């Protein structure tokens, strides 16, 4: 049969370029990142000198790195807990019909649509040490008597980072949960109403269990977006004050790109991989679980 009718050849020809691109520009750099972490490469030279675990032993002895690792975990977990609560609640609100819902949805989606860096710069202004509108409001309402240097104190700065991360991810999670809600078979929900379940019982005993895979997907993406995000911390605090609010991406950037120590930067970034593997495995499990129920990934 001619080429124009050979599905196998056409399939390979159409898939080939994308596959080659992904392998060449994602797969190879990924491997290169791991290799670099075992080398003493610098941005200026092209040679790769094998130094074994030297980079790892250096950063593991570095309190700034350990702090960044801890901060990454705190920010990721803290913001995602907030996201779950906010998104589940927001989804319950936004599934209902009310006046002005379209406009409300538009506003709700704003944090997710705006570029991270621009959102972060707006928050930097909101948290400004002199002009913070939050401080003004807290003082006027009598909740604050002293002064909060939001981005100037390590604890407060981490808290601010968590707020910004949760703020930017929860709209995305809300929309995913809403999609999940709309796919819950209506007859199951109606059956529970007929069976006498009230709002809360229905929510916790019927809907949330059915929504679990969807919430899991939202959280897993949220984890990836937060743990690997550079923009928010870079712009909000730059890792300061005194390197106390670094997360892995900002520290990797500082050492690897600004400091031109590619090996150490790569080693720091490699600590993101366990986060990603956990996420990937959990996602596969969610997908497989739904595969059983839904007759295949992407099944309709």
């Amino acid at each position: 049969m001619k080429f124009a009718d050979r599905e196998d050849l056409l399939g390979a020809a159409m898939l080939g370029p994308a596959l080659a691109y992904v392998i060449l520009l994602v797969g190879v750099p990924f491997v290169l990142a791991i290799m670099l972490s075992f080398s003493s490469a610098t941005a200026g030279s092209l040679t790769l000198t094998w130094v074994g675990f030297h980079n790892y032993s250096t950063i593991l002895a570095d309190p700034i790195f350990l702090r960044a690792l801890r901060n990454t975990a705190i920010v990721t977990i803290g913001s995602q807990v907030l996201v779950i609560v906010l998104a589940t609640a927001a989804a319950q609100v936004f599934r209902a019909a009310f006046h002005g819902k379209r406009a409300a949805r538009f506003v709700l989606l704003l944090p997710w649509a705006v570029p991270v860096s621009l959102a972060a710069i707006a928050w930097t202004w909101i948290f400004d040490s002199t002009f913070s509108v939050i401080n003004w409001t807290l003082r006027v309402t009598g909740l604050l008597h002293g002064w909060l240097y939001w981005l100037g104190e390590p604890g407060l700065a981490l808290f601010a980072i968590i707020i910004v991360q949760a703020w930017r991810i929860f709209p995305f999670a809300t929309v995913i949960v809403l999609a999940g809600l709309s796919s819950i078979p209506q007859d199951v929900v109606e059956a529970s109403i007929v069976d006498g379940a009230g709002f809360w019982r229905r929510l916790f005993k019927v809907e949330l269990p059915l929504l679990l895979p969807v919430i899991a997907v939202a959280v897993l993406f949220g984890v990836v977006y937060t743990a690997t995000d550079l923009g928010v911390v870079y712009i909000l605090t730059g890792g300061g004050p005194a390197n106390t609010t670094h997360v892995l991406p900002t520290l990797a950037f500082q050492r690897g790109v600004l400091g031109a120590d590619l090996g150490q930067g790569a080693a720091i970034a490699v600590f993101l991989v366990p986060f990603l593997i956990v996420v990937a495995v959990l996602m596969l499990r969610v997908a497989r679980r739904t595969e059983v129920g839904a007759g295949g990934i992407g099944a309709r």
Partner: protein
Amino acid sequence: MKRVPLYAAALGFIVFAGFPFYWMFITAFKQNRDLYVGAFDTRHVPWIFNDPPTLEHVRLLFGQTDFLRWVANTLLVIVAVVIITVALAVPAGYSLARLVGRWGGRLGMGIFFTYLIPPTLLFIPFSRVIALLGLQNSLGALILVYPTITVPFCTWLVMGFVRSVPWDIEEQAMIDGYSRLAVIIRIAPRLILPGILTVVVFTFTLVMQEFVYALTFISSVDRMTVSLGVPIALVRGDVYHWGSLMAAALFTSIPLAILYNLFIDRFIQGFTMGAVKG
């Protein structure tokens, strides 16, 4: 839910989500003497215009900064990345859904997972690759690297979309006299047009938003994109011009938000990967 708590809750979420944008808006149009009043002064209410609004910051943004240059750079990168992404991801997604057979789903999943590998892991090896290619500090670096984010996700999106389009029209065309290839070239694009449009919009929004690679590869102010230039380079001396900054953030966010509102459901179908039955 009862009406009053419902509206109260909705209002709460809207205030939380929208407050920074209100703050961008009010900052962008406030006169400086209204803007720079320390928050210690509890008699001056920062939430409202105490003096008449002004277009001064906007004029400054468009007249005396590189903002328009960054917009032009961003649009250039968008056009190039959209072309690359459509050219790579649309055929690949179609192939995975229709031609490759039963391995299509798993292969698609594999490609999708590379979307999870973040820029913050790859920017270090890339900084070396880009230097080797002599692309440092050029938009070419961004055009080369941005498809690493868009191609995996969009291949997956297109695969899901093509699967949801009934097969029979393409088969009918094969019976009516077209070869498989002719069907792919002349019939399929019409049928999957909404999927292609989704790819274009996703790529557009991604390029508008990307920060990490731009920060890593671009150092000259006149080659920056909007998402990099506004927070990094919109500073004169070492003074932040908050009015112009917030105006830039606002003007960039609004078109993106409109696009998002139109296409969010399609994006979400990609993210939920079948955890939601469509």
